[in-house]
Each structure stands twice: as structure tokens, then as C-alpha cells.
């Protein structure tokens, strides 16, 4: 853990070498997701609710998704950039160092400028928490926390899967963005609004609904089933097959010539 923080301070130092660029990235990140927020705001100005969810409830959903995704993008950026690590030969360097591969990929790149999005998510959350009309008892706070942690897990798993695939092909990796960026965009609204099919896909194939839709039902009082609180933990099990796939890819690794 101490080593992790050393890596972090190293990366922060590196990124601070280009201060202007860094702060422009932070502001840019903030603005990009702010337009999304504005879009939602204008829409709810006309219609009062979506699939029975109020503006504040949807905002809660949006903020949580953004929070989890930006945190993952910030800290698991190494997996997101994994094809570049392979191409540049950085992975070879990682493999000749006596530390875990996962650990080193995580520390190969931490994108602090994602803090812009993160800050926005916090702001929206700060607005949505008091206005959502939810009574914040202990179990509700736990639900919200687990939703965030679960989101972190599922998004990280998707990134790891993406990295695993890039061992086999660099071409056509874009389609993975449907799942990563797609889940984020879909996740702005409670997943039930997309219909049964999408909800099932996002429950059983890519378990996004497990940390978003179902716990939200409990959070907003639509369901009293306390089991829903812990569904995000179940969703995190998605990490296991993704990790195994990554290991499988690593064994097949061909390296690049020099």
C-alpha cells in the first residue's frame, strides 16, 4: 500500500509538470459531463417523471454512476490504456519487475484529471441527497455506499475484460466501448426505462443493474426487500471471470519486437 502511494505521488508529479494542460483537462472533464446534466435538467423541465422516477431520484442515479465511473477511470486507467501498454512495450517492463501484474498496470497510469468529473458527481449528489425525499437512515446510507463500491467493481471488471481482449486483437476493440461508455450513458436513468430486454442483459450478462436499478428500488422505497441492499456485492463477483480471462490472455502474450 505504501508503494501504491509512492506510485501515486510519482504520477501526480509527472502530470503536474504540465500544469496548464492538467487544469484545462479537469475543467474540460467537468464541462463535458455538465452538458449531460443540463440536458437532463431541461428534459425534466417539461416532463415530471420518467417511468415513475422523479428528477431528484434520477439525479441520484446519474451522480452515482458518474461517481463510480470517473473513479474507475481515474484509478483503473492503466487497463483502459492497456493496448497502448502492449504496443509501447511497457508491459514487458512491467513483467520484469518483481511485483504483481495487476498492481503494476493499475499504477502505470492514474488519470487525476478525471477529478473534474468526480467533483461534478459529488456536487450533483450533494444536491440530490437532500431533495430526493429519502429519509437517510443507516440502511439507506449503506445502500448508497454499496452502490458506489459495486459500481467501482463492475466498471473495473469491464476495463480488465477490455485489457484481456486486447491480448488477442487490437482491431475492433472499439466495440467494448459499448459496454463501458454505454453502461455509463445508460446508467444515467434507472435501467427499467429501457424495457425488459435491456434490463435483463444488464442484469445477467453485464451486471450493471445489480448496483444501479435494484438497490435504487430499495433506496427510493419502491421495494422493502432488504436483500436488494447487497446486490452490488454480488455484481462485484463479475471481477472474477474478467480477471481469469485477463490471466488467460497474459499467458498467450506475444510481446512486440524491438
Amino acid at each position, binding site marked *: 500500500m505504501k508503494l501504491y502511494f509512492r506510485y501515486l505521488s*510519482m504520477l501526480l508529479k509527472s502530470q503536474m509538470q504540465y500544469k496548464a494542460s492538467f487544469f484545462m483537462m479537469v475543467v474540460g472533464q467537468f464541462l463535458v459531463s455538465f452538458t449531460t446534466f443540463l440536458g437532463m435538467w431541461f428534459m425534466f423541465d417539461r416532463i415530471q417523471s420518467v417511468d415513475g422516477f422523479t428528477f431528484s431520484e434520477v439525479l441520484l442515479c446519474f451522480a452515482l454512476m458518474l461517481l463510480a465511473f470517473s473513479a474507475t477511470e481515474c484509478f483503473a486507467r492503466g487497463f483502459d490504456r492497456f493496448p497502448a501498454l502492449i504496443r*509501447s512495450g511497457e508491459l514487458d517492463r512491467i*513483467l*520484469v519487475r*518483481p511485483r504483481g501484474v495487476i498492481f503494476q498496470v493499475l499504477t502505470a497510469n492514474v488519470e487525476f484529471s478525471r477529478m473534474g468529473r468526480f467533483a461534478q458527481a459529488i456536487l450533483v449528489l450533494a444536491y440530490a441527497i437532500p431533495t430526493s425525499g429519502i429519509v437517510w437512515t443507516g440502511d439507506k446510507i449503506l445502500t448508497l455506499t454499496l452502490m458506489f463500491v459495486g459500481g467501482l467493481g463492475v466498471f473495473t471488471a469491464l476495463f480488465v475484460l477490455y485489457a484481456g481482449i486486447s491480448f488477442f486483437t487490437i482491431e475492433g476493440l472499439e466495440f467494448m466501448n459499448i459496454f463501458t461508455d454505454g453502461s455509463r450513458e445508460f446508467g444515467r436513468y434507472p435501467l427499467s426505462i429501457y424495457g425488459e430486454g435491456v434490463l435483463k442483459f444488464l442484469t445477467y450478462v453485464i451486471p450493471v443493474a445489480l448496483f444501479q436499478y435494484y438497490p435504487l428500488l430499495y433506496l427510493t422505497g419502491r421495494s422493502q426487500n432488504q436483500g436488494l441492499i447487497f446486490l452490488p456485492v454480488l455484481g462485484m463477483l463479475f471481477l472474477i471471470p474478467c480477471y481469469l480471462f485477463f490471466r488467460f490472455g497474459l499467458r498467450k502474450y506475444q510481446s512486440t519486437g524491438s
Partner: protein
Amino acid sequence: MIELKNIRKTFRVAKRNAGLKAAAKALFRKEYTEIHALQDVSFKINDGEMIGYIGPNGAGKSSTIKIMSGVLTPDSGECLINGRVPWKERAAHVQEIGVVFGQRSQLWWDVPVIDSFELIRDIYRVPEEKYRKNLEDLTELLDIGEIVKTPARQLSLGQRMRCEIAASLLHDPRILFLDEPTIGLDAVSKIAVRDFVKTINREKGTTVILTTHDMQDIEALTERILLIGKGKILLDGSLEQLKSRKSTHRTLTVDYVGERLPLLPEMQVKKDLDGHAEIVLDTEKLSISDAIAHISAAAEVKDISVAGENIDDLVVSLYKEFAL
């Protein structure tokens, strides 16, 4: 102790023709070519040896280094380094080796080199005392005391390479892999790097395995040479053995007064201009002393020198011999 036995490695490479149509086709069906990077590579290296690993581009040098450093897993064969199989006990294995990839950096680009060194110290869990001592020795030997406070991206190639080498030795590895360490360096830096490698091999007994295209590196550093071509070890022997294999040819360089040098039929003229001639002769047909006697009798010689076949030529002729 390094031991490789019957190592094989085959790569599958997607191939497709040029052009948009072919690219579109490749989306649906891929054709693969198999490249046999290594076919049956075996050798043994003892502790403290200094090995020159040579061969043309694409011969399998880097693949071998990557297998020995635990990056690649071979398809079949055995590899035992200090009693370990590199790709099975990767973490324990790499703790004892240092690797310098000449064309890739292990330093963090935007921070002072010394920061990189400290992070590497933590990655390899080098005790503080040992780190201090190693750092002191390395900065002195490589003369990098001044430049370690500079960010890596601002260093010249020569300065950076010296820092790279220092970085790969901070944890006292028993084996050092140098993959083209002098590529692109100026003469002064090359010599500095060579001297350093020699010192570290002599004083610490570090086993050094060096791949290079620079034959002067080989000449200056290594006693033993492994020649690889098309995935096979073609030659394993000393530089002297290598030289004696091929060098019945000698080049005579003569400076003389006069118009033209009268020659014997066994002499081949490479050039003869303004009183400066270079002549190649086969010592099996004409001995050097006979040649010199003939030349000095025929012209007024100012200077004369004999050179063995250049090592570059030697390697080229070896490559030709094995039809690489």
C-alpha cells in the same frame, strides 16, 4: 547459471494484403502466418560469464532475452535460471536480474531521474543501506552525479542510457541483460558504457548477456559469442575461434612514393590512389612476408600496416555462410 534446452517459440501473425478491400475482408476472416522465432535453442551460461549474443534482425535475439527474463512463455523446451523457471516463478526470478531494453526506457519520463531510482528501490525492496551504497558506486562509475536531478526527458541519449543502466543495477542483480545498450550513442558514451559493463562484470561477478549489432561492443567486451540465425544457434565459441575460422584474408594498407604499385597476381586491389593503396590477400596463397618483400622491393614504402579481416565483414560472411 543459465540453461536453455530445446526452446521453441512460434508466433502467429495476422497477415493481410494492402488496400481497403483486403482490410475489410480481414475484419471477417483472418489469415495467419506462423513465424518460427525460435526453433530448438539450447545453450548454457556459467556465472560471471560475459556473452555476446549476435544475429541479424529478426533472428530471435529479443525473443530469447524475453524468455530468459520471464516476459514470454516458450511453446516447448526447458529454461532454468539460477534454479528457477522464469515464467513460472516470475517475481522471484526478476528480483535477481536486471534488464536494459536499449530502445525503451524504464525511467519515468517527466520526473527527475533520482525519483525514478527511489521508486525502483521500493519496487525491488532494496534495503536503504544497500541502496545508498549502490547508488554511490553507480553514480561515481557512470558519472551521473550531476544529471540525476534532471527529468529524464531532458537528458541526451547517452546520459539517459547511463541512467538506465544504473537503474537496472540498483538491486544488485546476478544477471544483467543488455539489449542493444549502445544503439545510437556517440563514441564517448559508447566507450563509457563498455568500460562500465566490464567493471561491473569483473568486480561484482555479474553475468552479462549482451545483444548488439555493434561489432566493436563484441570485440571490446565479450569472450564468448553466440550467433543465432533463423531461430537456431549457429555458433557458440570465443571471438578468437570465430576470427580464425574465417580470416585467411588480410588487408595491407600501404603508403608509398610513386605512381602505381606493381602487384602480384595473388593480390587484390581495393583501392590505389595518390600513393595510398589497400590490398587484400589470401594468406593461404601468398604469405604476408612475401607480399611485403615484393612491395618494398618494387616501390619506396613510407608506411605499411596489416589488418585482419574486419569483424563486421566476418559477421557478414558468417551470415552468408549460413545463408541467413
